[in-house]
């Protein structure tokens, strides 16, 4: 337990130290890579709540990532054009305030997770995987065929959204925002998984019949976890859109769902900081190997295979030497 805490602090500390070090050496690009790792890590932390702690293998979390991204893009583009997003039933103006956009992104992603979760949680196993995938693909094709916000080409916005008192264009300041939100999400996950709710969620993963026999309905518990998970991933999507100042249907595609899952599996399923380590390794490999060969993902595949076969606890499991903890 204590050892796990140390590892979590080390992982998070390394990420922050990398960004600060790169900033001091004037390596703006590396700061941006660290920011990307923080954002992907945040998405992984969100998925981990459902997948790791709840045992809900969702192959559709790109839906929430993309929704967060599109909410950000849509608000920003309307802020730039001055046209309201909605006039009926109420007037909703665009915005370029992150503090206003984030709650919108999280609420939108949370609502989508509520609908998708309510339907897909009636299935289990491979059917659950397929149903979540199907919902995400529906949104993907919807985004492609909706010309208003760029369709297949995606939607660019030229100015990064603003945060009071900070210059969000400065890479290290934007990193600080993303890392703070990642830290808060980790804290939230740590608290929630130790609570009554966390106890029930993890019990339902391990033995659903027994959980029912003590008077707890797994469905409501799992749906709550799924919605919280979707909201965190939605926030990550909002940050990712702002990082690139661009959203496209790719954020909603099943590749994205798979990548988020890879962060979790690489780092360690059901480990607090596992997805952060997984995302950082992923970005590092992409950066180092991507320059060597366009086929770097084949090597990533080998690494994943090795992890799944020989170290099911992921990278964190290798360090702590244990497979999983409750």
């Amino acid at each position, binding site marked *: 337990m204590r050892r796990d805490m140390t590892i979590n602090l080390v992982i998070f500390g390394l990420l922050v130290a990398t960004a600060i070090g790169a900033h001091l050496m004037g390596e703006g690009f590396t700061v941006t890579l660290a920011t990307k790792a923080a954002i992907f890590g945040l998405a992984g932390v969100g998925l981990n709540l459902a997948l790791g702690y709840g045992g809900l293998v969702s192959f559709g979390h790109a839906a929430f990532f993309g929704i967060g991204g599109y909410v950000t893009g849509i608000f920003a583009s309307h802020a730039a054009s001055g046209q309201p997003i909605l006039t009926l039933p109420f007037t909703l103006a665009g915005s370029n305030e992150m503090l206003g956009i984030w709650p919108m992104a999280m609420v939108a992603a949370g609502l989508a997770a509520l609908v998708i979760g309510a339907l897909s949680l009636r299935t289990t196993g491979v059917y659950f995987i397929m149903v979540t995938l199907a919902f995400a693909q529906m949104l993907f094709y919807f985004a492609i065929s909706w010309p208003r916000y760029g369709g297949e080409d995606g939607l660019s916005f030229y100015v990064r959204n603003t945060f009071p008192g900070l210059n969000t264009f400065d890479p290290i300041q934007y990193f600080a925002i993303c890392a703070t939100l990642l830290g808060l999400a980790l804290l939230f996950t740590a*608290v*929630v998984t*130790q*609570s*009554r*709710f*966390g*106890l*029930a969620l*993890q*019990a339902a993963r*391990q*033995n659903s*019949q*027994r*959980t*029912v*026999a*003590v*008077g*707890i*309905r797994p469905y*409501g*518990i799992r749906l*709550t976890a799924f919605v919280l998970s979707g909201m965190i991933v939605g926030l990550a999507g909002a940050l990712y859109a702002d990082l690139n100042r661009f959203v496209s249907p790719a954020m909603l595609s099943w590749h994205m769902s798979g990548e988020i899952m890879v962060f979790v599996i690489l780092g360690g399923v059901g480990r607090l900081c596992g997805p952060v380590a997984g995302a950082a390794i992923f970005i590092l490999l992409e950066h180092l190997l991507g320059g060597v060969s366009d086929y770097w993902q084949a090597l990533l595949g080998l690494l994943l295979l090795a992890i799944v076969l020989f170290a099911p606890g992921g990278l964190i499991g290798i360090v702590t030497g244990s497979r*999983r*903890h*409750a």
Partner: protein
Amino acid sequence: MHEPILELTGLRKSFGALVATDDVSLTLRPGEIHALIGPNGAGKSTLIRQITGEIRPDQGSIRFEGQVIDGLDAAARARLGLARSFQVSSVIPDFTVLQNVMLAVAGASGNAFGLLRPALSDHRLTEPAAFHIEQAGLSGRAGVKAAELAHGERRKLEIAMALALRPRAFLLDEPMAGMGLEGGRQLTAILSDLRTEAPILLVEHDMDAVFALADRISVLVYGRIIATGTVDEIRANPEVRRSYLGEAA
């Protein structure tokens, strides 16, 4: 004559052509241990699962403390105090003994949604849990992972979890299964004490335990109850001897 705690009336359940439960009526009275015996495949587990709400009977009705519970799901029945144990020990393997029992306390309280308060420092969970762990004879094992418990200890853990539900009735599905001689003796003593908490419907193959514990016995054969009575009545019943007890009695 007391009102029965649990009353089954005309339960019937079939799977295709197989009638697993055929017009079963039985009662569980306050303070008694009512054993349900019968050969393998007689439909004992199917009957238990209809009482817990895991499967629905095709016909018939179940009353629990005077209330018809046919419309309630398994979780709701558990919260009313219908506590069960499983034929194969069923606990949360990665949880400690304490966490397992805390889960049952949380379930019984009807509040499993506290998101922010750490469960391990919530005395409303830990105190009752510690009490029931001691009651079930697992003192000093609270911090051990359930997966690392010996078979007999896991049985006791199940009993602690059942106790945490503040049970009004126990449904124990073969609690003696797989217990050694000494473990079986210990468990018999624990079950005998449990009766003071709430009446027990006991499904059991171990005839020594059944004859030692039961106030009444019902014999289930091919889904039908062929006899109900005291230990002596059942021992003496010719039909029971022929169809089930055979040379064992």
